[in-house]
């Protein structure tokens, strides 16, 4: 169905091809998962299927790509529209019309389907994706997960033979992601749709794939095989595979179910070991569990003697907070306090009010009832210049925080904004992001680097409270583990951290406490181990595999095993 013959793509001005000598044949009805670290050309490969590379992006494509027998060299993207459906990374830039129903119909209108066929398919797709209640809603009022489902639905309606998806679940909460994946599964099984998909969150998708194609580095050859084969050698892998590799299971398990069946022995060994939680909250928390924390503290974190709390009082106290937007109450009676050195994960489905709570903490939205105190101040009444010394937020799109056209310019601006000494921010950037040149444009950084730069900008003012909104969106495992290391060091330093995230693995790895929001109300608040173990949709894979024991992460298990003796050695960084 999709055939790459000796394909290389070189973008204009690039010295080397982004992808080189790709050979790939995807037969009809197969779901192929494209994996690899950021920046290895996954999006380029996906774009080549729909013809957008090189017809739209420019550059040179050598070799031949055929889709359903049509050569993309002679067929423009619009002439492939009836066989290929493409959903890009950002659903918002995909929408042409303004309401859900029109959006679902748009592709069919372009192809000239008969009105009764269109009507039937729109109804089917609304049901398939659970969008029936939203059919008349303007798209701009939908939450991110809903938008993602509309975007997928809008390419499903013309019944393409091939679906190309670039990170379809990274913006979704676990339940919504499962829904979308179930839909894909059904399309593959019932309609014989061929799916080619790139995704960083392997723990969600790898078990659905028939085959996995791995790109290890830019220009590297494509490695194609069954998921178990590829996961055994892949530089990116989900926790279930990490646990399997740690304990040397062959073949590698890909699903929690498989892993549980193999894990009996491991559970027995772990039962005897002392359980160590992921650090207790408090002004001076226990050093974080993971060996991933740097043994030698970077210079930046040594400036203040370790153990000295940033402030003695709680950096954030929220009591009975309610926030209204128009006539809907987005937050209702939220009470929360965060201690110095504590990491709190805010979880909950898309649109539950997580981002709103973070916005209230930095004063972007005023409370309609209750109170918010950040370092004793009311954030929405405080001048921004004072507020950044008490709280810093890294927004969902870190690029929003960056204005300048060079990293050096950004750092200079951050220093003057924060009233910090010249070079403070640049020193931070050098610590967190070694090897970034002064004249790099923030736009040219990868997602992970941009996030780190935004974090450095926020940290310049040394706020005792750091908020991160969906920090792992678009990050590969390596960038994610660097972020985890960094945030752990900050927490050890005494910074309070609040993360709004859908990423259960991140929450398990990092947070002391989890607060679950549902429809603007906190429905669970407690130590991570207790909250996530009790909830099937928020439990990380390791917990599911090793339950009823309360292990949360692979590194925790590895630590315990290493401490008990040279039982098993892992290679996970």
């Amino acid at each position, binding site marked *: 169905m999709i055939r790459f013959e000796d394909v290389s793509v070189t973008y204009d001005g690039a010295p080397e091809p982004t992808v080189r000598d790709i050979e790939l044949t995807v037969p009809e009805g197969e779901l192929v998962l494209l994996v690899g670290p950021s920046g290895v050309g996954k999006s380029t490969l996906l774009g080549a299927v729909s013809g957008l590379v090189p017809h739209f992006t420019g550059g040179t494509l050598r070799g031949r790509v055929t889709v359903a027998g049509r050569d993309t060299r002679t067929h423009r993207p619009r002439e492939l529209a009836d066989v290929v459906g493409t959903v890009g990374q950002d659903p918002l830039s995909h929408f042409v019309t303004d309401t859900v129903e029109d959006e679902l119909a748009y592709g069919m209108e372009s192809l000239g389907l008969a009105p009764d066929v269109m009507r039937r398919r729109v*109804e089917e797709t609304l049901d398939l994706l659970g969008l029936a209640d939203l059919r008349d809603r303007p798209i701009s009022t939908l939450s991110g997960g809903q938008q993602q489902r509309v975007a997928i639905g809008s390419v499903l309606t013309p019944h393409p033979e091939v679906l190309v998806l670039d990170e379809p679940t990274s913006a979704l909460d676990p339940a919504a992601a499962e829904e979308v994946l179930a839909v894909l599964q059904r399309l593959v099984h019932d309609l014989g749709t061929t799916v080619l998909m790139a995704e960083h969150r392997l723990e969600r998708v790898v078990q659905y794939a028939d085959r996995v194609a791995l790109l290890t580095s830019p220009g590297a050859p494509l490695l194609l095989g069954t998921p178990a084969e590829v996961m055994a050698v892949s530089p990116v892998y989900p926790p279930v595979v990490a646990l399997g590799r740690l304990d040397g299971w062959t073949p590698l398990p890909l699903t929690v179910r498989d892993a549980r069946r193999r894990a009996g022995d491991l559970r027995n060994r772990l039962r005897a070991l002392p359980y160590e939680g992921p650090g207790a909250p408090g002004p001076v928390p226990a050093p974080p569990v993971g060996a991933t924390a740097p043994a030698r503290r970077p210079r930046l974190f040594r400036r203040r003697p370790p153990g000295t709390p940033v402030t003695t009082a709680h950096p954030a106290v929220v009591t009975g907070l309610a926030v209204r937007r128009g006539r809907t109450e987005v937050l209702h009676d939220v009470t929360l306090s965060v201690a110095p050195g504590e990491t709190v994960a805010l979880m909950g489905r898309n649109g539950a009010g997580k981002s709103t709570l973070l916005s209230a903490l930095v004063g972007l939205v005023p409370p309609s009832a209750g109170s918010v105190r950040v370092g004793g101040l009311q954030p929405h009444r405080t001048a921004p210049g004072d507020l950044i010394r008490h709280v810093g937020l890294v927004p969902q799109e870190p690029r929003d925080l960056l204005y300048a056209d060079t990293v050096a310019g950004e750092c200079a601006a951050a220093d003057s*904004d924060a009233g910090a000494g010249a070079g403070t921010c640049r020193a931070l950037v050098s610590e967190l992001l070694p090897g970034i040149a002064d004249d790099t444009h923030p736009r040219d950084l990868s997602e992970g680097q941009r996030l780190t730069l935004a974090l450095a900008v926020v940290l310049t003012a040394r706020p005792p409270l750091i908020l991160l909104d969906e920090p792992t969106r678009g990050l590969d495992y390596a960038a994610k583990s660097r972020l985890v290391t960094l945030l752990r060091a900050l927490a050890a330093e005494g910074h309070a951290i609040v993360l709004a995230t859908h990423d259960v693995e991140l929450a398990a790895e990092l947070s002391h406490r989890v607060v679950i929001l549902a429809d603007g109300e906190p429905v669970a608040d407690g130590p991570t181990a207790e909250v996530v173990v009790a909830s099937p949709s928020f439990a990380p894979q390791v917990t599911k595999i090793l339950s009823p024991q309360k292990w949360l992460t692979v590194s925790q298990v590895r630590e315990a095993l290493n401490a008990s003796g040279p039982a098993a050695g892992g290679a996970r960084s």
Partner: protein
Amino acid sequence: MTTSETNGAINCEISGETNSKTNGENTGQEHRAGTPGTPGTPGAPAMRTALPWSRLRAPRATRTNAIHPGAWWIWALGLGTAASRTTNPLLLALLVGVAGYVVAARRTEAPWARSYGAFVKLALAVLGIRLAFAVLLGSPIPGTHTLVTLPELPLPDWAQGIRVGGRVTAEGLVFALYDGLKLATLLICVGAANALANPARLLKSLPGALYEAGVAVVVALTFAPNLIADVQRLRAARRLRGRPDHGLRGLLQVGLPVLEGALERSVALAAAMDARGYGRSAEVPAGVRRTTAALTLGGLVGVCAGTYGLLTAEGGTYGLPVLLTGLAASLGGLWLGGRRSLRTRYRPDSWGVRAWLVAGSGAAVAALIVLYASTDAYAYAALHPGVVPLIAPTLPLWPAAAILLGLLPAFVAPAPAPAPALSDIRTTVKEPS
């Protein structure tokens, strides 16, 4: 589409149940609405045995029974025409009230519906500017009731006839008020049409040959709201950097990132539209293509010549026939051009009984006011109350009754599901994800 039948059949199996339920609901509403069958819902027998009065009440608004946007525009333009024929402030206030009532009763919560508030503000601004000009620049109306005398700016000879400052008379002010009120009412009528009719759906009624251009216009229309959302987001982000998030400087500093973002989004959107088949066209024989071009161009030339003929004194005889021929030729060209377009239309709005009533009520208001104005001198005076000498305007009974006809849509148009609150004009921000 060769695969459409087989695929469709399988999907029907997947979700046939819910699908038929949805169709059933729509059919029921459609029959209560009394509109003729739409393509999507083949005429099922009306199973409801409702009481007559409940059959007459306006149904819940759904997409099926939505009033054709053209009907709303005819209604609004009818009210506007009526407003342009009178300066009587009581009648104008009545028109504003009628338009406002219908908007309040039938507006949905969609983003375009919020534009009404902006139009009302614009109308007030226009009124204010008109009055300010009358005060500052004087007024040609001779008046005896001097309210205040401003210091007059001495102007050189060449600026004769222009006056800055000086006497402000009650007559001049009242005249400016009537005049400004007329303009404000017109604006409010246009705003009402904007709030009640979805602009995107109006473009769906364009002929096939113009549809692609229509989509481009719709995309351009969504560009502005997106830009405003970007500005708001980036200004909020400024607060996170510790800079003031309001004021002109803040706006200027986010300008470049906002434009960069807008450009990137436009490129991404163009790619997405291309990948979804925008601009696909059918192969048409070269003969048809040439005929289309000839008809369209020739028709347009004919329209120009005909209009010129009609407007000049000499061409009275040939003007009209040439204009009509040109018009017919261009329409033929458009129709032929539509054959290049493969597009079909998803659920086009149907023009049903309720659409006729909505459009008819607006047309009736316009026609009755125009008729009344042409009856006799007394009627004209009632529509244009004098300002010299100052007299209190009276409400002429028949025009007022005619204007009240414009309230009809508030009772016959389908009602939006939850009654919209009048106070809810504030712009709501996108739900957090």
